[in-house]
Structures are given as C-alpha cells and as structure tokens.
C-alpha cells in the first residue's frame, strides 16, 4: 500500500506538511503506517538525525489519529529497542492512542523506561524538528509514566519498579515525583479489574501479542540471482551464497559494527552467540549453520567482523561465519527485503531481523522488529531441520 507519494528529494518541511495532511484525512490515515517502514524510499540518503525527526513526526500524527493494529508493531519495536529520547517520547505518546490498552503492552513500556531513564532529556513536540531548550515541556520518562498511568491496572507488575524509581527521585525533582505518583495511583486505582488479566504485566504476554516479531513461513520462491552473491568471511575467505546456505538449514542475522544502539546490533549478535550455544547443547552445531551478515560491507572488513564477533562470544568456523557481501549488496537487500536504509554507504536506520533458511537456502521463517527468544528460534529451526 505505497500510496503516499513522498520522494527522498522532498524537504523535511514538505514531508512534515504531507504527514499532517495525511493524518487529517480519515481515508488516508492508515497510510502513515507504511511511512514507518525503514526501507521506504523517503528515508534514502537522509541522515540519522533527520530520520529521527521524520519518524517522530509520524508517531506524533498517530498519537492524534490513533494507532492501528497494523501500526502497533512499529510502536512496540521503538519501545523495545529505542534509545533516542525524542522517538521514545513520541512513541510513548502514540501508544496512548491505541484503542485497546492491555496487559501485554506494559512490559514494552517498562523496557523503554529501563532503556531511556538514564538518557532522559527535554523534548519538544511543538513544531517539526524543534529541540527543547527549556525543561518546561515533556521528556521520554514523563511520557512513559503517562503511558503507564493510561494502562492503569494493566501495568500492575510495574509497581515495584516504580516504587524504586520514586525512592531514587526523592526530593530531587518534584515534577518527576508527581508523574511517578500519578502513574502508581492510576495502576493501583482499579482494584476491580480481573486479577488474571492485570498480573500479566511483566510475565509472558497473552496470545496475540505473545510473539509479535515472528513472521512464520514466507513464500519459498526460488532466487537464482542471489545464489552467486560472493561473501567474504571474518577470515577473508570468499564463499558464495549457494555454497554456504545450501545443504543445511541456517540462521541468519543482520547487523553492522558501527551501530550506535546497544539494543540492536550488539544485542542481536550476542543473542546469535547464545543461539549457537543452544544448538551445541542439543548436538546440532554441525547440522545448522549460522551467519551474521553486515549491512555495511564497505566498512566492515574481515578483521572488524572477526573482532566484533569474538567480543560477543560468537563461534566462528566453517559452519558459523560473520559475512560481508563483496559486491551486490543491493540484491541481497532486495532478496531479504531488509528493513534498512542508507545515507551514502552508511546505515541511517534499521530494524532487527533474523531469518531461518531451509536446506535449499530459502527463507522459512523470520523474526523481525522485536527481540526474539533464543529458544524459540532454535525450536523453529529444529522444525525446519525435520522437514
């Protein structure tokens, strides 16, 4: 549904005006979700800060019009892994426009609070691209606390954490203490709510939102053009897609070494190392291959790949490799429909993504946007292995 005609050449004020117009039109509102896709052409060639401003503005528009079910995954993704104050604040505000508050949302809000509380800073939503130079407005922590208040009894599992935050604030900030108190009051305020529902906060979320990142089976079409793509691994050895990814199932993650968000690439590669250990424990390390492929092959040379993997405990041998495409990175990107965009050769925004490939090298399943559970990935891989 790529109806919103926004080109990468459009200026930021033009973009902001178009988002406002789209949000104001009830027939076109749903198109705002499409604009949150990282691979949307409008993000090509823009810097990371511009993308923060743009995505923030879309989320603020959603906060006015309401977050739909289709847009919810983008909101949860930002809460799960976001570290930018403006984006997290806008996302927290947007979530409050979701029509069905429920207990499964609370762990995401709490995770965002844990990620951002030591990076809290004033943000301004007054006009596009504005930075706050006074503390009279809002901050991501304040927005997240307001969202917990909105969740009310659904966020009961968050109370302990809020108590400790309150103690830490003490007499240092009346404003913040008031926000914490308001959230706690709202959570405690509705004792009449069904306990089985409210206790779900901070435990496993209920069905429907239990595994929002899992994409299930993708159509396993053939893809001859990618077979010949040449990769260079962490030791400088060259290998084609076909040579490495055919013959056995494999698990593939994408990352880049210059990623500044510790909740994304660094964590993804660390979790790949844990997946490798789970495979080893089940005696499957020789039956399933693993690969971490960089988004940034021009910069991520073999030595950088090796050190990055080694620092995160990744097993690296003939079956398990850190890879960079030596050319044709675009074909690779199109094949996997990677959620990434670039300014020149540098990544400006990406999602987190893991793919399970079958023994033919075709995509059998994917986990996207929200961090996956390592055991769940292994279980799904074993299913593919048994096929």
């Amino acid at each position, binding site marked *: 549904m790529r109806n919103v005609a926004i080109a990468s050449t459009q200026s930021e004020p033009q973009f902001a005006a178009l988002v406002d117009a789209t949000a104001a039109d009830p027939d076109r509102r749903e198109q705002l979700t499409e604009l949150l896709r990282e691979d949307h052409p409008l993000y090509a060639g823009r810097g990371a800060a511009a993308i923060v401003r743009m995505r923030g503005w879309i989320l603020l528009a959603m906060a006015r019009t309401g977050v739909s079910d289709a847009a919810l995954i983008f909101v949860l993704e930002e809460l799960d892994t976001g570290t930018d104050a403006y984006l997290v604040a806008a996302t927290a505000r947007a979530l409050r426009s979701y029509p069905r508050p429920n207990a499964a949302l609370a762990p995401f809000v709490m995770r965002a609070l844990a990620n951002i509380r*030591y990076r809290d*800073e004033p943000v301004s939503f007054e006009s596009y691209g504005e930075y706050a130079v006074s503390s009279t407005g809002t901050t991501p922590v304040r927005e997240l606390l307001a969202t917990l208040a909105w969740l009310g009894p659904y966020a009961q599992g968050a109370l302990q954490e809020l108590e400790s935050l309150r103690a830490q604030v003490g007499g*240092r*900030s009346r404003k913040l203490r008031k926000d914490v108190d308001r959230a706690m009051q709202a959570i405690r305020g509705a004792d009449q709510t069904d306990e089985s529902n409210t206790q779900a906060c901070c435990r496993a979320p209920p069905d429907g939102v239990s595994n929002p990142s899992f994409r299930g089976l993708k159509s396993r079409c053939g893809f001859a053009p990618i077979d010949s793509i040449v990769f260079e691994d962490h030791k400088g050895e060259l290998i084609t897609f076909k040579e490495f990814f055919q013959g056995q199932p494999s698990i593939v993650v994408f990352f880049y070494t210059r990623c500044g968000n510790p909740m994304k690439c660094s964590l993804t590669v660390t979790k790949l190392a844990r997946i490798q250990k789970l495979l080893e424990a089940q005696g499957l390390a020789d039956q399933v291959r693993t690969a971490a492929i960089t988004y940034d092959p021009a910069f991520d*040379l073999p030595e950088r790949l090796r050190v990055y993997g080694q620092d995160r405990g990744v097993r690296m041998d003939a079956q398990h490799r850190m890879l960079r495409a030596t050319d044709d990175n675009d074909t690779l990107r199109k094949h996997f429909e990677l959620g990434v965009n670039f300014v020149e*050769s*540098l990544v400006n925004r990406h999602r987190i993504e893991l793919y399970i490939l079958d023994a033919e090298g075709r995509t059998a399943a994917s986990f996207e946007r929200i961090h996956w559970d390592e055991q769940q990935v292994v279980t799904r891989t074993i299913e593919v292995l048994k096929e």
Partner: protein
Amino acid sequence: MATKRKVAKRSKSTKKPNASPKASARRAVSIATSSQRTVKERVAAAAEAPLAVCENEKDLQAMLNVLRNKDEPAKVRLAALQSLQAASFSVLAFEPCRGEYIATLRKVAEDPDPELRQRVLGLLAREKDGFAQKKLLEGLRNPGKALLPPEKALQLLSYDVHAEAYSAARDIVKKPPSEIARREALRLLAADASAAPLFEKLLRDKNELREIRQISASALHALKPEKLQETARKILLDKSDYDDIKATSLTALTQFGDDEALGKDKALLKSVDRLSAGEAPAKYKQSARRFLSKYGR
C-alpha cells in the same frame, strides 16, 4: 607543600568541623551560588559542590542559574559548569536532574562567551545531542551562524559517525577556510568508506603536507588496508619521495603486510636497503634495518 597549604585554606572556607561530606558540599553550593562572595571563593567552593548539586531541586536550580546567567563572572559560570559536569558522572544519582541539565546546556550553547560555548557544545556533542549537531552543521554550512571555528565543530561532530557531517567535511576539503580546518575535515572523513580514493591520492601527492599524508595513510589503513599496502610499496620504490613518508610506509608494510609476498619482492627490498644505507635520519634508517632483518637481510 604549597599545594597542601592551598587545599587546607580552601577546606576552611567550605567545611565546618565534623560536618558530613554532604553537608560540606551543600555549604559549598551555597557559597558557589552566592553573589555576595568573591569570585575566588565561589570558584573554590564550586569544586567541592558536585556531591550536593543533584541532592535537591533548590541547589540544582541555583547552580543552573549561575551557569545560565550572563551577568555572572565567566570564571564562576565555568566553575558551575565543571561542578555540574562532575555531578553528572554519577549517572544513577544524577538521573532526576539530567533533563534540566541538558536543557540548560542547550541554552548556554549559544552564549556570547566563546569558552563557555565551546565547553558546553563539547559536552553535548559527547552525548551525541541532536541540537548541538544541528547547530554545528549549520555553522559549517553558514559560517555567519557558526558557534565555533570550523576545525572545532568538525572535531565535535566526529564523535558521532551518524552526525551527517561527511558532506560538510568534503566541502571543507575542497574549499578549506584554513589548513587546520582541512586537516580536521580529513580526520573526520577517515571513517567514510567512500573516501578511500581521496586518501590514496593525498598519500601519493608529494606536494601535500606531511601531516596530511600521514593522516591519509592511517585513514587508508582503516578503510582499505590492501590499498595502503599497494601505495606504501609505490612510495618506497619512488626515489624522489621523502624519507619520513617512506618510514611511515615501511611501518605499514612491516606491521600489516603480507610477509611471504614482501620477502620475495626484490625491488622493494633493494629500495629499503638504499634507505638504510643512505643519508636519512637515524630513526628512519633503523626502521629500514628492522624491516630488512625481518626478511633475513
């Protein structure tokens, strides 16, 4: 001895006998923020204040007001900034104060005092602050709006690889306002994968400044190590190139080169032999001898 006396004198001004460290720090805040005290007393007190700066809202606001107030003496404002900065290192304790602190830094980033401006922008840039990056980039594109000299702005922008500074740095390399700005622009571009051909060209250019050629060698090693090896070899074979650049090239080959290929490269070994026996300064000759000994010569 003199230092000890100074410390003793300063302690006397802010500490009461048997006062707890926090009580002393609170007293230090009240001295540092009092316009009734001398500049010297206030600066000394600010150094002892960090422990109390974020203990309560009143003290925080008082310290931030000193930093914001253009009528306060510059020395006192700088001392207040240093005190707040020291307090911010205790990330957990400073959490409730961070918002106000960052907002104040953004405000002071455009202060008329150049030293304060530079210090504040430096702190914000280290936080990868979007506001500071925007202001610094605006200044590079429009020097009339610049808050800092271009070389300093480039240095601060280089803290964040995602700061969108490559295009501005390229423009400065093409049309440098000063040699020092050009140097900083090149340092920043050393993380730009597409800049490898530029560094290769600069490294080969004998008319280029030595420092620029050395920066280029280091950048090329980071971006395209095989190109550095190739270029270093060419430089060593070039009889007319400078000894210090040859020595840099030699180090690159010694440390990172393909030992097997280098050991068989007769032309290269002969050229290094010449460097070791020629009239080059002793340290370059030593590098040449080290290289030759690696290959049994």
